[in-house]
């Protein structure tokens, strides 16, 4: 609780007045390597003690939950164009839950490691393990959230992080008699799920949304073996042709939105 108070954010520069509490800071997840994960926690706007806890993770791998989840998507504040002030998000998810944004793994955003090789050998497994350690230690700092209904959500490559962390928690809970993490479920959006089926579905989307020609579609399906560990040169060439000569200058993440210049 003492560290919790040290983590309390009194107010962010340029922030409008709000009625909820927010906290941010570091939780060490590996003392030997000096890995510490940064979190930003925004309590629910009303009766936070009765609302569930949601952990939000972004994908990449290597992208920031503070940048995307908190500041563009589900967090209470949006940043203005000049980066000088914040304004309120009318549909912030902290109207329904207490939201915990985690910068994961070490090397993302403000999260860091004192062992530079950690940045060169990060992967799914360590990310999930560090996130589990983070959660148990964070709940020691915020004991009111022990045994609270808990959910995980995220998008994109967090399609790996979210179910992998859920499995770690599930296994951890099975091994403990009175586990503190009361995991109820998870939700993922536009999530990386299965390399093979995702790839077939992606090319199908390009074709069915007329982003690529029939000829290119057939050529990709002919030359790309989506079960292979590494793609072939022929496959890379035909996919590059689609992207560089047929897609046009679009935002692939939102195909009908003007791209950011």
């Amino acid at each position: 609780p003492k560290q919790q108070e040290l983590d309390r954010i009194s107010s962010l520069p340029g922030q409008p007045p709000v009625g909820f509490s927010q906290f941010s800071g570091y939780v060490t997840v590996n003392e030997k390597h000096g890995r510490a994960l940064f979190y930003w926690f925004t309590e629910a706007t009303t009766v936070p003690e009765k609302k569930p806890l949601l952990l939000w993770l972004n994908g990449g791998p290597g992208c920031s939950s503070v940048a995307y989840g908190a500041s563009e998507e589900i967090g209470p504040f949006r940043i203005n164009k000049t980066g000088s002030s914040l304004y309120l998000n009318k549909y912030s998810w902290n109207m329904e839950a207490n939201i915990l944004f985690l910068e994961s793994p070490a090397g993302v955003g403000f999260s860091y490691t004192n062992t530079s090789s950690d940045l060169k050998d990060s992967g799914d497994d360590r990310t999930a393990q560090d996130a589990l350690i983070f959660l148990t230690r964070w709940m020691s700092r915020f004991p009111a959230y022990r045994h609270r209904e808990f959910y995980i959500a995220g998008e994109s490559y967090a399609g790996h992080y979210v179910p992998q962390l859920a499995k770690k928690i599930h296994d951890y809970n099975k091994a403990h008699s009175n586990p503190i993490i009361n995991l109820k479920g998870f939700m993922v959006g536009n999530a990386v799920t299965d390399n093979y089926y995702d790839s077939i579905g992606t090319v199908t989307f390009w074709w069915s949304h007329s982003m690529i020609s029939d000829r290119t579609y057939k050529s990709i399906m002919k030359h790309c073996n989506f079960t292979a560990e590494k793609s072939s040169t022929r496959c890379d060439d035909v996919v590059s042709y689609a992207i560089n000569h047929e897609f046009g200058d679009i935002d692939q993440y939102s195909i009908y939105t003007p791209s950011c210049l």
Partner: protein
Amino acid sequence: CTENYAEKYYNRPDVQKAMHANTTGIPYKWTACSDVLIKNWNDSENSMLPIYKELIAAGLRIWVFSGDTDSVVPVTATRFSLSHLNLRIKTPWYPWYSGNQVGGWTEVYEGLTFATVRGAGHEVPLFQPRRAFILFRSFLRGEKLPNS
């Protein structure tokens, strides 16, 4: 372009101080994504489907949604993948509503709910904040998405 605004804001020393961030003097700027991590990602499982099977059996509430204008991890990718879970359908495919408009389509399977979000790209709550909020509220409450 909104990540450019974040890059400006989170690199401000007063913001970092208010957030108790960068207390050890990280030797690089705050960035929305780390190129080093992306380039050197060491291990990545081929498929999450076995974990889904295990966690569905454990009784967790699992929802998967998809913004239908994303071409990076598009709706057809997710549908192809989920179809290989071979789940039994509990509530057949139907359009769900948000403010008298179709918010997307959904199907409730035994152990998993799938929903699309109409007009949303990769970052669903950025492009369709209201629809994403309704989705989240329904998920938390364990309710089906509204059919009218």
